[in-house]
């Protein structure tokens, strides 16, 4: 979806303001939201793409709050969307009826190791890769209403295949609950002037990770 989340190249957000000696969390509630979210992911309540799509669907004015405010809103939404709680329970702040069995059970100290590092998104391929290193490709001009990971700022532009990452879970399908639908994944590099025009920084090169369905031969 062409949402507020797709920010590459936008103007108007001001300066980047690094914070000296920044704490991991700015308030205990942020850590609690992070933990709740990660735990629900670890028990398989929703996948990472469904989680991202949940954030993208927040109204722009809610999106434009803070990172953990978005995570909180997403978590409340996803609990209801995927049947792990009802809206009246979110409003009441407590459970009013029994929970639903999650694909990987309950999150306990025994499965803390699922949190410390990421799993693999690699999947076996069902067809050979369509593109090879060095190929010129065009990012398709697509504007799906659902979740996609092809940012607007590269759509329609020519780039070069720089890396091949094997076949991986296709977010557009996984977010829609349609399974992994593995697709070849490429790093595609663009020239800054192709993306931003003739007066762009001539030393700039930008790459995105692009799944094969996002690309067509140049």
């Amino acid at each position, binding site marked *: 979806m062409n949402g507020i989340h797709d920010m590459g*190249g*936008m*103007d108007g*957000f*001001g*300066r*980047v*303001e*690094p*914070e000296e000696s*920044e704490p*991991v*969390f*700015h308030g205990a*509630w942020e850590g*609690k939201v*992070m*933990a*709740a979210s990660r*735990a*629900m992911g670890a*028990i398989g*309540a929703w996948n990472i793409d469904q989680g*991202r799509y949940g*954030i993208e669907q927040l109204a722009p004015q809610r999106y*434009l709050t*803070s*990172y953990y405010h978005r995570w*909180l809103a997403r978590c409340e939404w996803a609990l209801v969307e995927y049947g*792990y709680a009802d809206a009246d329970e*979110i409003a009441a*702040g407590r*459970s009013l009826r*029994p*929970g*639903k069995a*999650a694909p990987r059970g309950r*999150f*306990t100290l025994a*499965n*803390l190791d699922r949190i*410390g*590092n*990421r*799993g693999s*998104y690699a999947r076996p391929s069902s067809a050979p890769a369509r593109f090879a290193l060095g190929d010129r490709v065009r990012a398709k001009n697509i504007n799906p209403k659902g979740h996609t990971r092809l*940012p607007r700022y590269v759509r329609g532009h020519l780039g070069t295949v720089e890396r091949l*990452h094997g076949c991986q879970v296709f*977010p557009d399908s996984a977010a829609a609950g349609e399974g992994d639908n593995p697709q070849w*994944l490429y*790093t595609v590099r663009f020239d*800054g002037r192709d*993306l931003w025009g003739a007066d762009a*920084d001539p*030393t700039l*090169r*930008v790459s*995105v*990770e*692009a799944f094969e369905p996002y690309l067509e031969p140049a």
Partner: protein
Amino acid sequence: MAAMTDHHHHHHHHHDHDHGEASDLSETELRVRALQTILVEKGYADPAALDAIVETYETKIGPHIGARIVARAWTDPAFRAALLSDAAKASAPFGHDGKVGDHLVAVENTPERHNMVVCTLCSCYPWDVLGLPPVWYKSFAYRSRAVKEPRAVLREFGVSLPEQSEIRIWDSTAEVRYMVLPMRPAGTEGWSEERLAALVTRDSMIGTGLPHEPSGDRP
């Protein structure tokens, strides 16, 4: 200003009525308490396990992991080659519990090329080797501008690169995660890995900073 990215600065203009910062925070805290209560009462998560997730990211997983990887790469050419060819595999011994997730890629800075990592669509970040991202990495300013005017962004970090250096931006749009292998500072010949690791800043592994220069005597 960063007001829109940081709730702590979000309500400065609301002194006169009861939607000020304190009530906003307590409302948020109430929602968070409700969320946690529902997870626990419905049996989705043990409270001790939720606390342990927070503790893991506060005390165990952070940029010190990445700094050790960089210091090893600076001192061991075979490790450097292994890191650049398969960072997930090479980094695993440095990771929490001896693992890092798949699809980690290390990209090397050279005098000709400076690498910088961003996620324009959300805030993807190499958690396994750098911990949780700082607020600026998640900010709308960084996400919007890094792919278009990285030199201006770098100046806001106090970094100025040679005009002819290529600036290579890696937008993390899938599950591949990037860390930057910065250049080893001059004047550190013969230094131990531990001493070198202390020069490696978090920002230097994202590409918005450079490693600390060695202080004191330089050749």
